[in-house]
């Protein structure tokens, strides 16, 4: 690992004196464990044929929970397809994360309930939505008032590969030129499917912000405390009207890109093993144990985890199959007559049971 990373909790579990003493370390631990459990359970469900695909977050729990816990209720998050830990921190029902991957829905949750937007599969597209939302916040006057109940900011997630898309670069230009209340949170997990970071860039992610005219911060993404502190600071900066920040959470994707990827074709298992020793959860567990956290706390987390996995398994199988008319609904505010006719014909056709064998 490189040395220029902002870090507060060392791989040996030693917490820096400069860490904010009021942060809820136990809560962070629990959130990371639950995020990982969502992931392991979803992978198991995929293997059992219950999900078509899953994008694993293994190894990125520290970055995600650190960032997710920095959000205030009125802040808005724009995720990619891998932010299961942020979704958890936002209070999104984890079962609803499964529908997209099970093929029962194209969305899965109401983005307005938890200010957590729908997953974005088209790389980079969400960065511009986040910019637009931040422009809305500025127009509403909800920035720089000093009133913590009023000021808001946007936190948008992206991968290191997404930095190469034109749209992401346009988002950076707009965010800078308009000094928007936005934080770009890039999890540099070092891989865009099979492409190592060197295919995208010759400089570290954080350094790229400078060229656009805003701040870049490089943080140890396997350190939940540092990821949290950096995001709290950047969101505060944004809410106060001081403009954007690009956070690079330097981490590693320990699983294949998705359940259909074969990472043995493009990377060495030994490197993945090295990163396993930097595990964000184990690091915090070591620290918590070291400061005398009792067994009953860990037992409580384990019990909660067991409940969660039950809930996910049962919930996944209970996700309702969509109705045959569902593709037609909500395509327009007012359904055009010809689409209504298509829907009518289709529903009749399906009801007649003339379904082709797959």
């Amino acid at each position, binding site marked *: 690992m490189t040395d220029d990373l902002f870090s507060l909790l060392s791989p040996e579990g030693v917490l820096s004196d400069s860490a904010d003493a009021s942060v809820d370390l136990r809560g962070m631990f629990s959130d990371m464990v639950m995020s990982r459990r969502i992931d392991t359970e979803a992978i198991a469900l995929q293997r059992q044929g219950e999900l*078509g*695909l899953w994008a694993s977050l293994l190894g990125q729990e520290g970055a995600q929970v650190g960032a997710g816990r920095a959000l205030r209720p009125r802040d808005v998050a724009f995720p990619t397809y891998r932010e299961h830990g942020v979704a958890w921190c936002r209070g999104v029902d984890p079962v609803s994360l499964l*529908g*997209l*991957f*099970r*093929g*029962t*829905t*194209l969305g899965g949750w109401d983005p307005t309930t938890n200010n957590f937007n729908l997953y974005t*599969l*088209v*790389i*980079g597209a969400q960065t511009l939505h986040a910019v637009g939302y931040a422009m809305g916040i500025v127009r509403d006057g909800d920035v720089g008032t000093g009133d913590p109940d009023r000021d808001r900011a946007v936190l948008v997630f992206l991968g290191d*590969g*997404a*930095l*190469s*898309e*034109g*749209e992401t670069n346009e988002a950076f230009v707009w965010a800078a030129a308009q000094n928007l209340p936005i934080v770009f949170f890039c999890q540099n997990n070092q891989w*865009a*499917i*099979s*492409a190592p970071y060197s*295919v*995208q860039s010759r400089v570290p992610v954080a350094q790229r912000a400078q060229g656009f005219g805003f701040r870049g911060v490089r943080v140890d993404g396997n350190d939940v405390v540092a990821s949290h502190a950096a995001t709290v600071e950047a969101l505060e900066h944004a809410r106060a009207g001081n403009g954007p920040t690009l956070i690079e959470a330097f981490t590693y994707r320990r699983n294949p890109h998705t359940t*259909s*990827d*074969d990472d043995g*074709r*493009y990377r060495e298992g030994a490197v993945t093993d090295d990163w396993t020793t930097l595990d964000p959860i184990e690091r915090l567990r070591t620290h918590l144990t070291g400061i005398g956290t009792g067994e009953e706390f860990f037992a409580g987390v384990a019990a909660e985890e067991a409940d969660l996995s039950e809930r996910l398994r049962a919930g996944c199988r209970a996700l309702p*199959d*969509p109705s*045959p008319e*569902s*593709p*037609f609904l909500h*395509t327009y505010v007012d359904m055009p007559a*010809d*689409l209504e006719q*298509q*829907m009518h014909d*289709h529903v009749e*056709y*399906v009801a007649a049971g*003339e*379904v*082709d064998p*797959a």
Partner: protein
Amino acid sequence: MSTAMAHALNEGLRSVMEEDPKVLLIGEDIGRLGGVFRVTDGLQKDFGDARVVDSPLGEAGIVGSAIGLAMAGYRPVCEIQFDGFVFPAMNQIITQLAKYRHRSEGTVTLPVVIRIPVGGGIGAIEHHSESPEAYFAHTAGLRVVSPSSAQEAYDLIRMAVRSDDPVIFLEPKHNYWLKGEIDRAATPAPFGSAQVVRPGDDLTLVTYGALVPTAVKVAAAAAEDGRSVEVIDLRSLSPIDDATIFASVERTGRLVVAHEASQTAGLGAEIAARVQDAMFYSLEAPVIRVTGYDTPYPASRLEGDWLPGLDRILDAIDRSFTY
């Protein structure tokens, strides 16, 4: 020995790369991974990373730089990872690639191929099952082709790479693993021609790409009802081979067009318009379309019903005979 369509594409690419050192491949994950569908498997190992380029994650970059490479005398073959991800490159394709030859009054040709896995039926998540062909066919200056079998894939990819015009090469992913014999020595039909896959006398069924095998099954089922259906695989979606379609409709008097893409302003509308214009007095019945609906491509649990299948096409055939 029979070959899967994905492998036929790989072989076709390999053969043109061997023949012409100016051919190079650019795309996301096409090198060591061999592409997410393994169409480029092993090519980087054999031709090196200057000829099989793992690109940064940017589709405008892939197509835009392919345009520049073509201007510099190369023959780039781009891979777009999935149908739904071609849209960031649309500006380069539509405003630049399609028009440059015309603007330069023929002095600059752009022999760029853009390969895109298209279509549904594989249980994928959103943006992985789109049918974007009409956008391209609507744009003058592009050729649009779509093979449905291993043999066609082998022939068409070779012709596409050798074409001096830009080619949008749509690979029906549903057919990637369909196997067929390839005759590598056969003289392929000219670029731009449709193919009669199964001859028949009572009705013409026109389709392309993923639906061709379904159409052949439809014809077999219709034969049991005593109806002889002629199946035409368009292969070339732009230009459309009018002559083959007209000659068939002339004999059968009936036409059904089937495709996965949504109905409105799709290729079916184009074919129907051409046929009614040229063949009005030969038609016994209106041209009928069987297509995807005018909705977003649905969540995969619904795609089995949503996609045009055997029954919906047979229903359309029945309807044609009610006239």
